[in-house]
């Protein structure tokens, strides 16, 4: 398992490559090959979080949106506005959509350092945990 410093360094490199490289698929393949070679596949989630943090420092806010149905343009615009209010210094906002029917309804917005979970499933889980 890589140390925090090694991960941070790797994340910085990946963030830089993402800015320069146009094809995300090729970049993803390169990253995957590296991780497999270095036996660091278990650190993937941590590395991705570090990449998001590195990009945020560079002014690029990447947000994962999870919904039960595909998002309309109006909702995406509202989410972008919300992110602008949250990160006024950011230069660029990248929205990654994920459709997961198991969230039932609502939206989950996840950035490198913050999360807004307004899905029905989260509320039901909270209710269950309360009792």
């Amino acid at each position, binding site marked *: 398992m890589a140390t925090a410093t090694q991960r941070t360094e790797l994340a910085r490199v990946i963030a830089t490559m993402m800015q320069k490289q146009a094809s995300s698929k090729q970049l993803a393949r390169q990253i995957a090959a590296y991780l497999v070679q270095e036996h660091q596949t278990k650190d993937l989630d941590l590395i991705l979080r570090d990449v998001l943090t590195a990009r945020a420092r560079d002014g690029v806010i990447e947000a994962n949106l999870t*919904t039960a149905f595909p998002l*309309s343009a109006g909702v995406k615009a509202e989410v972008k506005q919300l992110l602008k209010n949250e990160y006024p210094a950011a230069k660029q906002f990248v929205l990654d959509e994920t459709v997961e029917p198991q969230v039932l309804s609502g939206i989950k917005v996840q950035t490198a350092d913050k999360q807004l979970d*307004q899905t029905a499933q989260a509320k039901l889980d909270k*209710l*269950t945990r309360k009792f």
Partner: protein
Amino acid sequence: MIAFVPIFIASAEAAAEPEGIAALGIDPWAILAQAVTFLVLFFLIKKFALTKIVGTLEERRKTIDKGVMLGIEMEKEKTDLDERVEALLQKARKEADTIIAQGHEEAGSMLKEAEAQAQHKADALLADAHNRIAEDIDKAKQELKKDMVELVGMATAAIIREKVDAKKDTQLIERMLEEVK
């Protein structure tokens, strides 16, 4: 030989006829002779036998007196001994009564203590049982609550899946984002 003197005098006088006081059958010479004989006999016995006899009698008297005194003493001592024995027996009876009374008292207090301990234990067991029952009830309530909440969650999820489409979901999301602003 002297003993025969009165006999000889008596026979001599028997030959003569009695006169005066002798007519009554009282012979002064015979009385005198008898007196003399008595005195002579007395002195002889006193000299040769009386001392020994008296000594022996005195000894016997002393022995008897001694025996009597000893008897009296022993009687007295026996009485004393009986009194002492009686006193000791009374003391022993008193002590025995005291010991028995103490024993009864101790047994009584031990019984009371044992009863109190048993009661205490019974109370503790009862309280413990009550507590366990209360705990079991609470646990059952919690589990029932949990099951109910799960069922409610499942029902809610099913209803949402049934009722909420893309359009309604969009409306919900817009409302949520409005609230978060």
